[in-house]
């Protein structure tokens, strides 16, 4: 095999596909072949390159040149000028600072990102298992199978990994709970029903590095004693579904899934289930109901899933990002993992930065990075030189944080002090021009729409909150309405069955407390 002179990585993800990535890819290959460069220039499909909002993105190595907003008709120019004559097409190059913001791991240590779960995303072709194998893929599985399940759990416990779905429960302890439960059958579920508005971190793992997730799931299965795993992916993620199906098939061919994996005697199978569009199914017990083919109504806890879970059997349910951390922890050890992040929350966290920032996108940084660093360092500050007003952190079920809290170090425990949560890792930034009451109204609309209706506090409470907030916006509200909203959200916190109703207290209280001056004119 001849070594290519340059590699072109074409980002294939929902965003780029919507901007015409398939057409660009086709045209690019045609042009390269027409110019007789097939041997010299290799075109590779990969997951997202981390740049968002710039259409179809290409990265050329070893030159480290990123092209953005590429259209099929630009391809002849890129091939002729850049690949033939060695002159990069200046007007299509993405500004260095934008690329630096999202790919510091590759471009130079201005402000470094630590990539663990996204280490391969945007580098390998996610549809080729060989590329994952070439980057130490499945070596963690081999190592795990040489240990006892208890040793695997001990390592995960020692690493201090906490669930990345939002609640931050220690993963090792969850696994241990299910391992100790006695039952004929146990299950592992990967929660990939990523529905929190403004969140797409899991999608990038599913699309960009599906084998990492599979490896994490098999290790989890081995540790817990499960022979069957499910990946519950939301139906809207068509590309994720396609890539995961392909990855499972390939892993099976290589003997990494199925009977007697790698000759260890351990057998494990994976099945993909497609969600049918219900936000509440992201809640673990609702998700299990849905997997059982029923309405996704949350169950009353306890008993917890590790004792009575899917089909009544002990079940571990983990978020995509959590499981994607497992291979690296097993391969490099808990001590390595603990060198990143904070004492109580080791490791990294993936964030999606959106809204009024200069460089919206996705980053993976150490736990404990401040909100200021994320918004002004990685996000490039507020668009148009405007002033920062608020950040909605953690998705719709998140908290409106004001400027005074920009220096908060972001991890599960630190945020708790400020009655905030890390949640899904979505950070929606609002400039001085945004209206918090309107934003809150939109959040309440969302909850009213997504309340499953099983328990009455949530069913009625979400409606009532939405109604009051609408009244406020129409200036029909009364002064006591503000307090009523807070009290209602508190009532929901105490009495709702599941986190959907319970979490409303966060956006409602934080908006009304931190930005009260914006609500007062509405009730005068």
């Amino acid at each position, binding site marked *: 095999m001849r070594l290519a002179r340059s590699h072109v990585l074409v980002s294939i993800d*929902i*965003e780029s*596909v*919507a*901007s015409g990535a398939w057409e660009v890819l086709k045209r690019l290959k045609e042009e390269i072949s027409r110019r007789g460069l097939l041997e010299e220039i290799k075109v590779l499909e990969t997951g997202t390159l981390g740049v*968002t*909002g710039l259409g179809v993105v290409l990265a050329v190595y070893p030159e480290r040149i990123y092209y953005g907003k590429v259209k099929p008709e630009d391809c002849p120019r890129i091939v002729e000028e850049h690949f033939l004559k060695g002159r990069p097409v200046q007007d299509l190059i993405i500004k260095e600072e934008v690329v630096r913001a999202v790919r510091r791991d590759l471009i130079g240590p201005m402000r470094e990102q630590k990539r663990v779960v996204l280490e391969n995303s945007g580098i390998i072709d996610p549809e080729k298992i060989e590329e994952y194998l070439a980057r130490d893929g499945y070596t963690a599985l081999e190592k795990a199978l040489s240990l006892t399940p208890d040793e695997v759990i001990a390592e995960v416990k020692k690493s201090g990994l906490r669930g990345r779905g939002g609640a931050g429960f220690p993963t090792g302890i969850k696994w241990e709970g299910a391992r100790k439960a006695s039952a004929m059958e146990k299950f592992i579920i990967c929660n990939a029903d*990523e*529905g*929190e*508005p*403004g*969140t*797409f971190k899991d*999608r990038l793992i599913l699309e960009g590095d599906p084998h990492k997730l599979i490896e994490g799931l098999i290790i989890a299965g081995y540790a817990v004693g499960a022979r069957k795993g499910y990946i519950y992916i939301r*139906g*809207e*993620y*068509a590309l994720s579904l396609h890539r995961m199906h392909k990855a499972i098939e390939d892993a099976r061919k290589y003997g990494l899934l199925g009977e007697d994996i790698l000759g260890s005697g351990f057998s494990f199978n994976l099945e993909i*289930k*497609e969600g*049918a*569009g*219900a*936000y509440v199914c992201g809640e673990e017990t609702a998700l299990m109901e*849905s*997997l*059982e*083919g*029923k*309405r*996704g*109504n949350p169950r009353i806890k306890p008993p917890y899933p590790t004792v009575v879970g899917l*089909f009544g059997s002990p079940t571990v349910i983990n978020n995509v990002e959590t499981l994607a951390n497992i291979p690296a922890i097993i391969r490099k050890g808990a001590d390595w993992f603990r060198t990143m992040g904070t004492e109580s929350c080791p490791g990294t966290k993936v964030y*999606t930065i*959106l*809204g*009024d920032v200069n460089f*919206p*996108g996705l980053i993976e940084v150490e736990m404990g990075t401040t909100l200021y660093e994320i918004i002004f360092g990685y996000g490039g500050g507020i668009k148009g030189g405007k002033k920062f007003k608020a950040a*909605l952190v953690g*998705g*719709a079920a998140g908290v409106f944080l004001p400027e005074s809290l920009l220096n908060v170090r972001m991890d599960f425990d630190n945020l708790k002090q400020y009655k905030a949560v890390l949640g899904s890792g*979505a950070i*929606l930034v*609002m400039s001085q021009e*945004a209206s918090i009451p309107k*934003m809150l109204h*939109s*959040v309440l*609309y*969302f909850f009213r*729409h*997504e309340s*499953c209706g099983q328990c009455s506090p949530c069913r009625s409470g979400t409606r009532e909150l939405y109604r009051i907030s609408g009244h406020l916006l129409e200036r029909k509200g009364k002064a006591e309405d503000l307090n009523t909203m807070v009290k209602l959200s508190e009532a929901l916190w105490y009495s709702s069955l599941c986190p959907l109703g319970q979490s409303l207290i966060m956006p409602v209280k934080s908006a009304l407390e931190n930005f009260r001056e914006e609500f007062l004119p509405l009730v005068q």
Partner: protein
Amino acid sequence: MNEQIVIPENEQYQELREFIAEHKNSKGALLNVLYKAQSLFGYLPREVQYFISRELHVPPSQILGVITFYHFFRTQPVGKYVINLCLGTACHVKGAADVLKAVCKELKIDVGETTEDRLFTLSTARCFGACGLAPTMMVNEEIYGRLTPLKVVNVIKGIRERELDR
């Protein structure tokens, strides 16, 4: 209910019957069966629900309960193009509400309705995870991003013209 439900015998029902027979014994098969049925019929009318009930041995009430729970399943026929407009937080910040208004005005329907010519059905969605393109919508399987009231009207007009040319 005394209403007699007549289930026609045709290829689609035959295919569904075979699918159900194949999945009958796997746990939690109902959702898979409903997915299959909707892909065959385009929606899930009462006859199909009863058919599934009979073949899968699940009460009709439970089937309707599941169908009405999930946004994906429909009991009414839909237009050839289903427009799903995202109203998630990121899209909201970027002006999704104005885009929605423009769509309603252009199609002369409300959310959840279908145009008289059966070409369009309008519905709304939560996040598609394509927030970098906000505001977004999906028309059947295809994503459109960075919408403005003007742009969205042009997309709709484009589809109409394409349909007229056929």
